């Protein structure tokens, strides 16, 4: 089942001469890890903003979990979780207070002014999520006193509190050091394995997309390539996805690279709900991101 459906999506900002997104289309299957790559200004954040209902589109159709982003935005918001490009925890509150407010905004619990006053299921949920990523000790620390990596981990916890169908990650590891990136991806992969959450990723770290089921490359507002990473590497004769990505962008202007977009302009490849079988076969100690 397609959980994200995009058809002929167009976005032209006010007073802009050219559309930022030019009639793009793709589909993402339930449980899929979908990487949406492209250079700065390609239209990644514009697309993700429209998909997450924070930006109005100019034309086209977008459905998330079967709900239209324009007419059923409440239902869409119910089914998604987002890690924004810019960190956005309230720095004056503790990490737990941020999570508590999020849970109440999503209607999961009636707000109460202290963690101890919240229902046992909430406390268990928060402690369990914090335990998975190893930040239990920092739950009650003011966010302004946490490192960037810790803040990112709490943003992930917050975004998963309401068990979203689809998790949008807009450059989630931007500004993090290598260790924090590894830790964050370990956690995200664990969540994917356990929950079967669909992940929609934009990133400038191409190695993070190596383990994706589908890689979609957007360039100047248009979908340039959309296929599994192995196919992209094979078609472009590159050893790594990063090599393929760089090669494509360098030669895009020459129009020498064959299009890998399917006739419908969509990624329609089916994947297992959580990609569980592939993940379980992964060798231990493999430190690839997004695997």
């Amino acid at each position: 089942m397609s959980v994200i459906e995009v058809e002929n999506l167009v976005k032209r900002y006010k007073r802009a001469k050219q559309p930022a997104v030019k009639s793009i289309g793709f589909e993402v299957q339930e449980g899929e890890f979908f990487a949406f790559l492209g250079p700065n200004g390609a239209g990644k954040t514009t697309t993700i903003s429209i998909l997450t209902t924070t930006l109005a589109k100019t034309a086209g159709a977008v459905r998330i979990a079967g709900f239209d982003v324009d007419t059923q935005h409440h239902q869409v918001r119910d089914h998604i979780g987002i890690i924004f490009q810019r960190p956005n925890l309230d720095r004056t509150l503790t990490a737990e207070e941020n999570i508590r407010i999020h849970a109440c905004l999503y209607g999961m619990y009636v707000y109460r002014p202290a963690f101890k006053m919240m229902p046992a299921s909430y406390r268990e949920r928060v402690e369990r999520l914090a335990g998975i990523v190893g930040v239990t000790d920092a739950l009650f620390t003011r966010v302004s006193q946490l490192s960037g990596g810790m803040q990112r981990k709490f943003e992930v916890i917050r975004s998963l509190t309401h068990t979203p169908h689809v998790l949008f990650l807009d450059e989630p590891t931007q500004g993090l050091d290598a260790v924090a990136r590894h830790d964050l991806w370990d956690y995200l992969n664990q969540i994917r394995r356990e929950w079967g959450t669909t992940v929609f990723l934009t990133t400038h770290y191409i190695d993070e997309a190596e383990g994706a089921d589908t890689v979609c490359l957007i360039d100047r507002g248009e979908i340039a390539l959309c296929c599994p990473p192995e196919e992209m590497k094979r078609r472009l004769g590159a050893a790594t996805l990063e090599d393929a990505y760089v090669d494509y962008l360098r030669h895009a202007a020459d129009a020498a690279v064959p299009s890998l977009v399917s006739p419908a302009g969509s990624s329609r490849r089916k994947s297992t709900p959580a990609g569980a079988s592939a993940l379980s076969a992964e060798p231990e100690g493999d430190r690839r991101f997004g695997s």
Partner: protein
Amino acid sequence: MTTPAATRTVGAEGQGGGDWRATRRLPRAAREANAALAVAARDVTSTLKNPGSMITALLMPVLIMGMIGGTLMQNMADGLGFDFGEFMLVGMVVNMLFMMTTMGMISLVDDSDDNYSAELLVAPVSRYAIVVGKILGSSFLALVSCGGVLAVGAVMGTTLALWQLLALLALAPLMCLSGGALAMIVMGVIKNNKTANVAVMLITMPQMFLAGVIIPISQSSGLLGALSRAMPMTYCVDLGRAVIYAGRPDYDAVVMFNPAVNLVGVAALTAVCLVVGTWLYARSEKHR
């Protein structure tokens, strides 16, 4: 295109126990009220952790009431036909409720700067729940500043009876809602913190004089008279005084309008500002 997915309910949940990953949600109306409460609680928690804002809220009445009001009281209060100190005290309580809530709404622009507004705007709740929650949160600091007004009044030898205080507190939600709704007209279109601060000062300071908070305006005419009647705070202040002075011989010297007129005036202006302001806010965030 596929059919909508059902809301995923992993297991039983509720207010105690059950599957820790469960996703059962509150009914829609309860969710909206709960979201407004959570937004308000966030602002209250932030305020409590920021002693500077509390101190400012307490000092504001010292400047406005103690210095401006005190000077007027010493030099111009004779022959008015009513107790100027009490007149000013009631006006200042309403003014602080209105003005501090209006100023507190600047935090919406701060949220936009800090990108926290994105967290609020992707939540599956109406924009009204967010705005009303913000107004409720801002009204906390307004109530703190009312404590400052009462303290300054006591120093100046003017106090309110308990029933008068309770009556004003009963009206406080309407006053705060009115001030917050007016602020939304500005916050709906301004995205810059400095501009928002200036704009809020421009809409609150003139009202303090035009609405008769400290200086009586019953004789205002012409442009000033028209402006005073266009200000939401005029009706808030007059309604507050109508309740406090009800049945007293100096009622007619202090109160300008029938309380019903005040109530309708406040409710109508608040409703218009709230609807238009929220629409502007939601639109400016999404339609770029």
